């Protein structure tokens, strides 16, 4: 059977997750708009509060969207009910990936676009663009790792560890970027410099994210139990 032969069921599973998590998503979106409005109020304290809130929302959307849609399903033993529907493990996997594309992908793309827009259209040095994209690349990779651990590993402890560790690693990653002259150097200038190092890191992040997600699908479809 071709992977998409069961498309109506995949759609049904995505719609089901949407119903289950739309309250949570609505809260994220509301908080995100509130954060932007605080940033837009152009007072130092609202700016910092808004930036903090925005960061919290992105991390929440990145982590908790996974945790609610995968871990809760397992913990509350609703997975058996879902898998008893006419679906294959591959359908289930594709539905979760598609759902994550919305819950994580949309805010992520908006934030990347927004950040690029702010850097390019304001007095902030344009050289910061490369650095910011690398940091977003890390968030993407962290999300892919968390998603794949949630999909493949049942232990809640390991999942929490994967989520927190991968997100916390952004600090050493930023420090590491600071140690690479080809990336740290042009950060404060107006020129956008795509050094070989920057291209190598970004493509590694993107390819690794795709590989991790693909590998997870392969592992998931080889699981022996789904309940």
């Amino acid at each position, binding site marked *: 059977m071709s992977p998409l032969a069961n498309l109506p069921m995949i759609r049904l599973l995505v719609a089901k997750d949407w119903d289950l998590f739309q309250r949570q998503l609505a809260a994220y979106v509301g908080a995100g*708009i509130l954060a932007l409005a605080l940033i837009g*109020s152009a007072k130092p304290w609202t700016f910092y509060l808004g930036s903090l809130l925005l960061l919290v929302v992105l991390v929440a959307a990145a982590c908790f969207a996974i945790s609610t849609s995968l871990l809760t399903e397992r913990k509350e033993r609703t997975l058996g009910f879902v898998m008893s529907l006419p679906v294959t493990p591959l359908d289930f996997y594709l539905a979760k990936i598609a759902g994550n594309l919305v819950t994580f992908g949309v805010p992520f793309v908006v934030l990347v676009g927004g950040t690029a827009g702010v850097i390019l259209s304001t007095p902030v040095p344009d050289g910061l663009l490369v650095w910011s994209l690398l940091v977003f690349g890390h968030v993407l990779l962290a999300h892919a790792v968390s998603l794949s651990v949630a999909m493949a590993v049942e232990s809640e402890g390991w999942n929490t560890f994967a989520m927190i560790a991968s997100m916390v690693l952004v600090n050493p990653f930023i420090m590491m970027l600071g140690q690479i002259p080809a990336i740290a150097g042009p950060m404060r200038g107006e020129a956008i410099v795509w050094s070989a190092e920057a291209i190598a890191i970004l493509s590694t992040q993107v390819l690794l994210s795709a590989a991790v997600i693909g590998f997870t699908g392969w592992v998931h479809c080889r699981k022996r139990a789904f309940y």
Partner: protein
Amino acid sequence: MPPAHGAPDDARRVPHRPGDAMHDPSRMHHMDNLRALAMLAGVLFHAALAYSPLMQPFFPTADRSNAAAVDAVIWFLHLFRMPVFFVVAGYFAARMVQRRGFGAMFRDRMLRILLPFVLFMPLVLWALSASTLHAASTVAHPSPVLQWVAQFAAMDDAPPSPPSTAHLWFLYYLMLFYVLAWVVDTLGGARIGAFLRGLHPAGLLVALPLLLAPALAMVSAPHPAPESPLPQWWALQFFGAFFALGWLLQGHDAWFARLRPVLPWLVPASLALHALFLHQLSLHPPGPANPAATWSLALLQAFTSVWMTLACVAGARLLLAWRTPLLRYLADASYWIYLAHLPVLFVVQYRLMDLDWHWGWKLSASIAATLAACLASYELLVRRTPLRRLVGGAATSPSVRG
């Protein structure tokens, strides 16, 4: 707001019942016409800014010939023009959600609001900037803004101007309000709506202005346009309240009708408040000395805004509940006219700046020329082209009426 949780789109479609006045499409003419009027009033408002003494230091097309009478009129209009528009937008959005669900509403608004915003934003910004730069180097009697632009253009390392959504900010806020409506609805907004409609609508006359005054106290008076690409808190609160009001009114005409006894008093009362506002404004004129409105200015604006908006919505039911081919044409064209008018208006008014005409002639001429150009472009570029689906009338897209 209607319930949304988990219900498939079609589950809450309200079947059309014959004789059900609430769902009779003919009953929506007044809201349609009101929206068109609010949009067309924008052309008048923006055209008149050039002849407002108050706006001399801030508006690019500010003209040597101006009159205080202009200020007296346009700042009154300013207080309810966009609020009325947002009430109508909230009303139609709620109507569409009730009939076809949030999914359908978002799909429709993507096409009618987001796509035009993305398509026309760069064009509008380019046109405004090009005509202004050209005027800065050619106009003999430049406005303070044009003089500043000329100096700025002469600088070698001039920083880029801050990003702006110009007069299309309302599309950006509409999208935010549609999303927020879903957020509120998903988090239990139906209960809030039911609770509010359980109160007497006369409460709106006092409670709403008191809710809005803090928002208006955050910005200068008269309140500016929220053109920043980041959402402004005060604008979310101020215009969002009117959007929510429109949402609440949808399908609850009887509730609104309970306001009938006070409605005739709203216009004279608002005029009186506006006289007070003008007096206060002369004591605290906008500028670096008064970056934010005083509380009295904020309160006066808030009351006038709410009262006049309610008067307009009620008045529309009495005066605008009919449709002629001409009205229909204007209603269809009004969205495009509003999108296109500002760049055209700037070109026209930059041309008029060096003429020694009376402001009244300049105002009339600029409005007439702008409307003529916009209508002609509507006829040529929109009405018979695929653009009509995006920014044209509702004839090919009945959904926009909800």
